[in-house]
């Protein structure tokens, strides 16, 4: 049991921090431009695919540096020539635009790289078990992912709180017009933040690709979860995104680890059920089975009872 | 006789800042009441508090003796208080005709009906046409409201507010940004449309205020410093110091 808890905790944190790399960019973008970027996870996918292609020719480490930059540049282009243009049609159109973009990027990825899973592997020097605990390996690559995620988190924190750019960004979040009047080029800041947010997503893709698989559906699988995180954490709140990322990461690993079902609960109260009833599926429902829908349940509950999210202070 | 609107110790704060700091005000039935005051005095906030857009932080608002504090706007509207906005606030993609009709539907008791065909409701549509006639937009009635000129939109704004026949009408700077001739037309319109009803208005144009109002209240920094007839307000030392004086210097 100790083993299970230890590894679930570790895995939960790895997943959570990975999710945070996506969620942080999404939250920054949202708080500045008020756009929930549906295509954010698509940039994550692009990161993985770019890194895959680069890794074939130049190796993993080059991909680690170059792919996020490429993705960031693409993000900047999308902001400059897509989002900024669509902005004139209003918020709903922006949301639909990013939705369409997500659809399009998936098609383009399939067009360029094909539909099957790509054999994108972790670099060989990281292919060893870092330590063994109760006979179970903890792969070095996971530790590497952890390290990168923490590094990014600290860097973000420092940039936002300590640097001039960070101050301008914070100002632009709260008072875009005022910041513009003070002589800062707000559209440029927007483009920059969008680009950096996408680059972060790309970086997450680069390091997640070998671990979680590089395939055309990878954006879809992760996309809505990241959405859930930024909403649950509170739109526009980085702290919230951080807490929610860890929460969702741990929730998902522990829900799988703990094998309890409704039936167990009923048995505590000595209630039996009819095995043929239409609700039979409800009674035999187990925690691992519903693990993937827990985030959405959380999302709906949060939106109903606390529309600002855990740490947020604005609703839409 | 109960007052049409009665404010008692009304307060509103946003975070640590108190914008409305204990306002007592009574507007009699049938009175035309103007609220004036320097920029940032809290006039619009006061309007929002009365009409239900903001929740009050303290004190109470009564309409015909009934406490309406913190009711949602639509409840307040149904109790007979209708308002216009300082920044034009219409339904831009709908035609002028439909804009006005939206202001009439609830009072004609259609509620959320999905079994009445709206174009077949003779009385409703006739009344709508009348209101449009009154605000002088008959020739423009099929145009989307969003493409009207500014003055036309202001007229429409007043039309929507007044269409439902609410007995208390609140107009927030109805003539703001208008030219002289437009202002004159607007005053005539307001006079016509508020005939026999209670009117509360915020207005910067002193000409309009002294022309229209039966009584005037002066709001300065969230407090009413005077509430009296135009004549007395004009002569009040306190008001002149606090407000008119400053205005005159400009």
């Amino acid at each position, binding site marked *: 049991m100790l083993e299970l808890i230890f590894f679930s905790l570790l895995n939960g944190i790895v997943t959570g921090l990975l999710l945070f790399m996506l969620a942080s960019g999404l939250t920054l973008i949202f708080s500045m431009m008020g756009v929930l970027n549906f295509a954010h996870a698509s940039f994550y996918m692009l990161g993985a695919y770019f890194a895959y292609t680069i890794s074939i020719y130049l190796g993993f480490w080059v991909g680690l540096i170059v792919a996020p930059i490429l993705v960031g540049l693409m993000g900047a282009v999308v902001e400059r020539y897509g989002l900024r243009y669509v902005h004139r049609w209003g918020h709903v159109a922006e949301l639909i635009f990013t*939705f*369409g973009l997500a659809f399009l990027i998936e098609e383009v990825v399939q067009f360029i790289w094909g539909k099957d899973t790509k054999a994108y592997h972790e670099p060989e020097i990281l292919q060893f078990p870092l330590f063994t605990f109760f006979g179970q390996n903890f792969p070095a690559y996971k530790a590497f992912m952890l390290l990168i995620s923490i590094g990014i988190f600290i860097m973000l924190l420092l940039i936002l709180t300590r640097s001039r750019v960070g101050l301008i960004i914070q100002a632009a979040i709260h008072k875009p017009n005022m910041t513009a009047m003070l002589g800062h080029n707000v559209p440029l800041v927007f483009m920059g933040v969008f680009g950096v947010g996408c680059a972060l997503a790309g970086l997450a893709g680069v390091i997640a690709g070998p671990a979680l698989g590089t395939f055309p559906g990878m954006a879809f699988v992760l996309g809505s979860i990241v959405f859930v995180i930024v909403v649950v954490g509170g739109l526009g709140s980085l702290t919230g995104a951080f807490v929610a990322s860890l929460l969702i990461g741990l929730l998902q690993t522990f829900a799988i680890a703990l094998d309890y079902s409704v039936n167990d609960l009923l048995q505590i109260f000595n209630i039996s059920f009819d095995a043929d009833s239409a609700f039979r599926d409800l009674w035999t429902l187990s925690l691992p089975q519903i693990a993937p829908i827990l985030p959405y349940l959380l999302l709906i509950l949060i939106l109903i009872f606390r529309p600002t999210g855990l740490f947020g202070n604005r609703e839409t | 006789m109960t007052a049409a609107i009665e404010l008692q110790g009304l307060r509103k704060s946003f975070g640590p800042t108190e914008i409305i700091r204990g306002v007592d005000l009574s507007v009699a039935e049938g009175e035309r009441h103007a609220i004036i005051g320097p920029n940032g005095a809290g006039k619009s906030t006061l309007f929002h508090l009365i009409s239900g857009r903001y929740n009050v932080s303290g004190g109470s608002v009564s309409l015909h003796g009934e406490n309406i504090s913190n009711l949602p706007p639509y409840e307040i509207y149904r109790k007979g208080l209708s308002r216009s906005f300082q920044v034009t606030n219409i*339904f831009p993609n709908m035609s002028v005709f*439909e804009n006005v009709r939206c202001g009439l539907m609830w009072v004609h008791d259609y509620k959320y*009906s999905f079994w009445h065909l*709206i174009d077949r409701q003779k009385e409703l549509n006739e009344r709508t046409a009348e209101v449009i006639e009154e605000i002088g937009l008959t020739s423009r009635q099929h145009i989307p409201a969003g493409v009207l000129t500014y003055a036309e939109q202001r007229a429409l704004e007043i039309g929507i507010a007044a269409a439902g026949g609410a007995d208390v009408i609140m107009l927030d700077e109805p003539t703001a940004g208008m030219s002289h001739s437009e202002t004159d037309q607007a005053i005539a319109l307001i006079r016509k449309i508020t005939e026999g009803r209670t009117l509360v208005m915020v207005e910067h144009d002193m000409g309009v205020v002294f022309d229209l109002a039966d009584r005037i209240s002066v709001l300065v920094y969230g407090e009413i410093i005077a509430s009296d007839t135009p004549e007395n307000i004009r002569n009040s030392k306190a008001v002149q110091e606090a407000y008119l004086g400053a205005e005159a210097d400009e």
Partner: protein
Amino acid sequence: MSEITKTASPVMARPLMKTLLPWIGFFILLLALPNIFSSNVGLYTMNLMGIFIIFALSYNMLLGQGGMLSFGHAVYFGLGGFMSVHFMNYIEDGDFTFPMYLIPIFGGLIGLVFGIIIGSFSTRRAGTVFAMISLGVGELMAASSLIFVAFFGGEEGVSGDRTTGPELAGINFGQDIHIYYLIAGWVFVTVALMYLFSRTPAGRMANAVRDNAERAEFVGYSQRKVRFVSFCASGFFAGIAGGLFALNFEIVTEENLNALTSGTVLLMAYIGGVGFFIGPIVGAVVFTLLQSILSNYTDIWQLYVGILFVLTVMYVPQGLTGIIMMHTAAWRMRQVGALVMPYLRIGIPALAMLTGIAAFLETIHHMRSSVEGDTAMSLMGIEFNSHSIVAWIVILALIVVGGYLTRSQLPQLRDAWETANKPPAQREGGGS
């Protein structure tokens, strides 16, 4: 999201005949279509179109009419389908007697019930919060559909048989042509009902709330309730569409309520034009055609749909219908004729460019996906070698020359457009 529809003038002034004319035309069209496209595939495609027309219109009650962006509308469609197919099975098992052709009513009812349940909390706000709740509910339902096998039948779904139960004039709906007329009948009735809904106080207020939710509160309407009413109605009609789906395919599966279907209906409505009542109809027809015909000719049809969608969102937010409606002014002034030549002049090079781009994509796709050494491919009946330089030169020439000529024709088109939209007599400053 501009509504340029001629928001109908009070009908008092309008002769009854004129109001009814489009509907009579619609009715005749529905009757006549199977005689024009009588093939099996034609019928099947039209059946699908009919279902999607209802579904897309019901979606537009949210997005276009009520300003609610939903990412989970398939929930009501799917549930309607499941409910209907279960009732089909009850009829088949003789549990109760009910005419099969009225089955979609059950679909509508469950759509309505879920609309009421979910609408009661999701319509509190519009905008992003509503969109997020709809997304969450959609994902939740889609995931649940694979867990609750008793109702959703797991991955296989639930199948039924539409030929049982009391017959209508000796027809048991075994043949596609019968089901076509059944769907057509439902399409006619529901389209009319949805149109009429938009002409009721609730429908009008939905528009008002979409335009300016706050102001609606100051004319006595609770924005939440207005949205709620639209939401429920929308759920009802989506459920009917789901019921027709069940009748047509005799099977309902998890995919009927998953995110893909929700995305598809958004796509249909938006491409068609959400600002117009007929927009989603146009969208459903175009999308079904793309889906069933384009996919026969090319593997990468979804790529084209994606490009079309993104371009629509960016440059033509009023959708295809919007493009058509842009011409009403010129049409009324009988000046559309002046646009024909300019359109031709820009259309031909533009078509060449598009052909070039499509050929470019197809050729690359062919090179990547075909068998090694298989370089022969055919496009639109032209056979060529995907590795030959000539083919590439032709393709690039099409793109470059077509693009250049298209660009060069833009000014003359703009001029022509302005002339065509200028009133012939100098009344007051017309133009657009």
